[in-house]
């Protein structure tokens, strides 16, 4: 159960930069009024970030080539989207997703 000094410093250093990116905006927004255009800009963050996070799990950057396709994730994504449209329930969507991925791996 050893903790090496270097790992500990990495944990603390990375913890600090992550914490600051999470907390500084809260302190700033509390004390300053955001301009109307910035509020409109930020209203797109949920839609854009979630779409980009999904894409990030399907396509991976490769040097000097088109992005690699994660076919497992791509295949399981489609029925999961269907489950979302039909059930509109997060827990159903997640469970269907897990089952689909297990099936995809079983079959291919």
């Amino acid at each position, binding site marked *: 159960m050893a903790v090496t000094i270097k790992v500990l410093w990495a944990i603390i250093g990375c913890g600090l930069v992550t914490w600051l990116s999470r907390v500084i905006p809260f302190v700033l927004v509390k004390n300053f009024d955001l301009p109307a255009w910035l509020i409109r800009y930020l209203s797109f963050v949920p839609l854009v970030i979630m779409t980009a996070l999904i894409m990030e799990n399907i396509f991976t950057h490769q040097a000097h080539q088109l992005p690699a396709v994660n076919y497992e994730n791509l295949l399981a994504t489609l029925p*999961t989207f269907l489950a979302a449209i039909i059930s509109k329930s997060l827990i159903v969507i997640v469970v269907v997703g897990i089952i689909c991925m297990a099936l995809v791996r079983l079959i291919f």
Partner: protein
Amino acid sequence: MNGQLDFETGIKDALPTVFGYIGIGLAFGIVGKTSGLSVLEILLMSLITYAGSAQFIMVSLLLVNSSIPFIMLSVFLVNARFILMSTTVAQYFRQDSIWQNIGIGTLLTDETFALSMNKLNFTNHRLAPSWFHGANWVAYLTWALATVAGGILGNLVGDPKTFGLDFALLAMFIGLLYLQMISDRSKGFWFQVGMVILICVLMYSLTIFLSNNVALIVTTLIGCFLGMVIEQWRLR
């Protein structure tokens, strides 16, 4: 999901996201252990750094003996999206004390962020600190426990991928994205469908030239700008 904003409802609303943390947390614990971290180091990293996907990057960089400033810079880039998410969430807590704000921000994750944006559609666009703390603590504790469990199981279980659990996270984002699109009445459904397609094209194109993490940030910055401009143009 309903309109209640107390601590217990926060816990309950966050339960579907637990699967995602368990799947990825187990995977992280196993990867950490097989890359030479001790279980205590895994626990400390989950409790102190608490950075989800960035923790995988830390492990891989530690493994190749990168310098600490370089590791910190990489983690900052991967987590730079937090700046945008925090700024978005913080607008709903301006009336609350600075300590409540810091508390919410400290444990904010992609998942609780997305969850809170969905919650807004049930509460007349209000959020409460107690609800957010409930959701955040479920996420924080589940992540710590799952990563430690992965570290202890270590080499025993082999690949957690066999069970499809690692897909839970992606499934959750798909679910939260769709639920967001059908419940956000401030933007029309088909406008949002158009935006999603645009973002997919943008993200794919940028992934050709940039690493995934950088492409994610650049897509977010450009995508929100395009959304704002197109919305303005539509309202005209």
